[in-house]
């Protein structure tokens, strides 16, 4: 067992791409946790999607041993967290398991929107914060200016900020020393009843359900019978281990330690992130406060392309939810798409990631319907309904008014792009609340309708500011506005999965863009296909996909038959990724791509 005085637990937090995962690499490397030959860049980003997109999606924990200058060896548990706003729940959850944070700031970029958001979260969690200025190897790095910025904008003392290059390894020893000297040791009573926090869990094809815990009080050992306090489930611990980052078996975990266990958990639902784990006998009666539940803001339907895969999808969603506490799901049926699930997400990137993980890790082809936020429908009879799916919009004669969710958005942007950002926010029905300057950067705060933001606001913001703006938001409440349901008709037939709620004033332009997009997304058919956007029977935009004119194999003799058959097979497989609406086949990706606006 490890003396809590020799333990330091911390998360690495930062704005997206400021170098958290690279710093984690160096800490792992310098402490010899992983053999040199097994090192690779951003090694904690182990999912395919993370490696392809170069971003962290899941928080990752690793335990390292560090012989400090004071002659003692310390056990450090580091949690690398994601930077993108859609995965903020991962960050807040991780922070609850540790006592301190390394706040990484890219010295060439300075303080960005998620830097701010993360600092506030760390302060809320009662963390000790060590600021780290990264990427000082870059010619554009301005550590002094960024230090000043941290003090001005955040109000954090940056005089002891550590200048480093996570890429070259410069300054890493200082970071390790600071972790030991500046971050607090965990507290906890070894003799008290076991109180452990269920921090994370995931499904492993070989091991089954793996549960990650942080022990607060007491000691947990291999073979112990434990109880999950919220769900009441009881299990015997089969295997207890720490992550280095590969699993390494350990006999026990005491106060302040972080580790994982397996327990032949059959019911995936028994493990809930934030739950408290104690011993079956002689356990504690007081659970830990638990995590603040995440609030999904974007909803969409997920349907298996092949209706026969519905049960597989159910199973996959359950397993994935284990690893991602921030998405919700409930069964849904649709006339056109059959059985599926209506799922809630923290943002569009989150939606894309979940969909991609379901497709890849569980090998299920999915159709995603138009994403929607949650509207409050105030009925004439005084009741209020939550509308997650525009297809469920009640008859207007019973509706008194509709409210939509609003957010407060904070955007940091260099001066020269401010005009474009203001215009973008204005176009999206935003109301400016604040505009301040820190050096040559402006910070604007806007009140915006969420439905104008979820689809592609972030992409647009990046493109109008050439990537120099950063953005963070949180939900503030609901407000009434003039909202209408826009339907899309493909070949004269309404396609529910494409209908959406829009503001009356924006309906025409959205309808037009939607029709144009669909025109490109739906392949030509043998007949021409009218595409219309309509509000309550009135067509507000239309496009026509002209009929296919040429698709024939020029040469096909005796020797070509096999090849031609293969081609047909391939095309048939392609057709499987389409859904039939009347006579028209719509590719699965059309449902989500049709919603992205270019302006």
């Amino acid at each position, binding site marked *: 067992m490890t003396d809590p005085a020799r333990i330091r637990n911390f998360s690495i937090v930062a704005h997206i791409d400021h170098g958290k995962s690279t710093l984690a690499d160096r800490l792992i490397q310098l402490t010899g946790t992983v053999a040199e030959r097994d090192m690779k860049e951003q090694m904690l980003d182990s999912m395919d999607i993370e490696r392809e997109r170069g971003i962290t999606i899941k928080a990752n924990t690793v335990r390292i041993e560090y012989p400090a200058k004071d002659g003692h060896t310390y056990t450090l548990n580091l949690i690398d967290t994601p930077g993108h706003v859609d995965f903020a729940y991962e960050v807040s959850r991780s922070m609850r398991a540790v006592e301190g944070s390394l706040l990484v700031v890219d010295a060439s970029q300075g303080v960005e929107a998620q830097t701010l958001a993360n600092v506030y979260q760390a302060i809320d969690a009662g963390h000790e914060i060590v600021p780290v200025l990264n990427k000082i190897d870059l010619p554009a790095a301005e550590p002094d200016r960024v230090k000043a910025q941290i003090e001005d904008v955040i109000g954090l003392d940056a005089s002891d900020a550590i200048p480093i290059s996570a890429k070259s390894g410069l300054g890493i020893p200082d970071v390790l020393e600071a972790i030991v000297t500046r971050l607090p040791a965990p507290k906890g009573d070894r003799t008290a009843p076991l109180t452990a926090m269920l921090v994370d869990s995931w499904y492993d094809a070989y091991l089954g359900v793996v549960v990650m815990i942080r022990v607060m009080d007491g000691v947990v050992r291999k073979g112990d019978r434990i109880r999950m306090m919220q769900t009441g489930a009881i299990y015997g611990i089969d295997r207890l281990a720490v992550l280095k980052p590969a699993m390494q078996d350990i006999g026990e975990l005491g106060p302040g330690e972080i580790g994982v266990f397996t327990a032949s958990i059959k019911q995936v639902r028994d493990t809930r992130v934030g739950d408290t784990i104690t011993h079956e006998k002689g356990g504690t009666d007081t659970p830990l406060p638990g995590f603040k539940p995440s609030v999904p803001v974007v909803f969409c339907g997920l349907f298996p392309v092949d209706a026969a895969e519905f049960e597989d999808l159910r199973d996959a969603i359950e397993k994935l939810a284990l690893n991602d506490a921030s998405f919700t799901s409930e069964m849904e049926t649709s006339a056109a798409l059959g059985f599926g699930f209506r799922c809630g997400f923290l943002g569009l990137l989150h939606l894309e990631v979940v969909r991609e993980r379901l497709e890849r890790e569980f090998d299920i082809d999915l159709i995603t319907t138009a994403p929607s936020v949650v509207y409050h429908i105030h009925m004439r009879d005084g009741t209020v309904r939550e509308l997650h799916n525009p297809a469920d919009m009640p008859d207007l004669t019973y509706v008194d008014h509709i409210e939509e969710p609003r957010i407060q958005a904070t955007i940091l942007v260099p001066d020269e792009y401010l005009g474009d950002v203001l215009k973008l926010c204005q176009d999206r029905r935003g109301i400016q609340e604040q505009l301040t300057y820190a050096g040559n950067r402006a910070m604007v705060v806007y009140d915006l309708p969420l439905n104008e933001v979820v689809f592609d606001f972030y992409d647009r913001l990046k493109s109008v500011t050439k990537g120099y703006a950063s953005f963070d938001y949180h939900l503030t409440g609901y407000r009434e506005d003039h909202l209408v349901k826009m339907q899309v008709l493909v070949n004269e037939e309404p396609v529910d999965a494409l209908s959406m709620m829009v503001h009356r004033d924006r309906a025409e332009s959205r309808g037009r863009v939607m029709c144009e997009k669909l025109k490109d997304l739906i392949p030509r058919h043998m007949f021409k296909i009218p595409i219309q956007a309509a509000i309550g029977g009135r067509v507000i935009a239309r496009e026509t996909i002209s009929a296919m004119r040429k698709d*024939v194999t020029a040469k096909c003799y*005796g*020797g070509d038959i096999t090849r031609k*058959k293969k081609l047909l097979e391939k095309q048939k497989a392609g057709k499987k990724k389409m859904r039939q609406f009347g006579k028209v086949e719509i590719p699965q990706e059309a449902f989500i791509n049709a919603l992205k606006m270019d302006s």
Partner: protein
Amino acid sequence: MPLPAPDDTATTEDWQAAGFGIYVHWPYCAAKCPYCDFNSHVAATIDHARWISSYLVEVERYFQETGPRLLRSVFFGGGTPSLMDPATVAEVIAAIRARWPVANDLEITLEANPGSVEAGRFRAFREAGVTRVSLGLQALNDPDLRRLGRIHSAAEGLAALEVARATFDRVSFDLIYARQDQTPDDWRAELRDALALQPDHLSLYQLTVEPGTAFADRLARGGLRGLPDEDRAADLWDMTQELTATAGLPPYETSNHARAGAESIHNRIYWQSGDWLGIGPGAHGRLTLQGTRLATAAFRAPAAWLDAVERRGTGESGRDALTEDERAEEFLMMGLRLTEGIDMARWTRLSGDRPLPLASLRDDGMMTLSDDRLRVTATGRPVLNAILRALLTPSR
């Protein structure tokens, strides 16, 4: 009182509706064309004696399997069969004639490249028994021939055509259109010139960039500019249909045009799902034996094929029995290329009366069903792949 009609469906096999032919593949060319994905190779030396003996081994091996059947056609394809030693052609034809009974109108076609034509060789091919030549002109102007990577000139092409016509009764030629930067006006003029030559058979192929060819490579690297998009390719197609029909050479297949009666017997065996032997490297065959339809394939590399024949007595790399579905789908896929369409009675027998989703295809004017024949209309012909997808993929 009328006599009862003899019920011979039990004794007639399906392939007999189209008949029996033999394909012989010659895998060598003088140069490899950049658009070509045929099994063709350039070789420094060719041991003609080895080829003769190997072809003859294959002819005999297949005769042992088929026994006597009425032979309707032999086709020497390539590669460039006009580079074959006429003696090889003569020996192969003689060996075939010595085994199978042949139809009165037995067609023996040889593919020829303009570069390899001289009157003497052609006469020798005729004496060997060749009755029909298919000449690869590809284009009638030098700049386009160069861009297609052809080694002959337009003048050489026309001269070769003259020689061929003087030697053979039946001569067809091939053109490739929808080329880089080819305008509708360019093609109209060139096709008119071609029709003015009064051929009674013409193959007109839209240029296809086949995977694995030099053209595919160029395209992937941003080269090969000026290829027509779908709409322009469709305009060129429409014009082709019009001009050929006016000239009395309507399409009888997707890319083949002929005066009535001048259609190629051999190719119709493929499109009508007859039986044919595939002899030579990479050749494919379809052979019905005891009610089972076999798909045969041969080793592709010339050396590997020769080796297999010499050592193991067969050039075949494999043969698969086709399932009922595969037979039926091949029949549909190939048969609908023909303007005459398919015989629904055969479809019913082959597919076990599998229903076809015809309603909307007929409503949209893509297909017609009359006199128990299913045909693709003039509107449907340029989008045949889409029609086949609709017919063969059950919709959900």
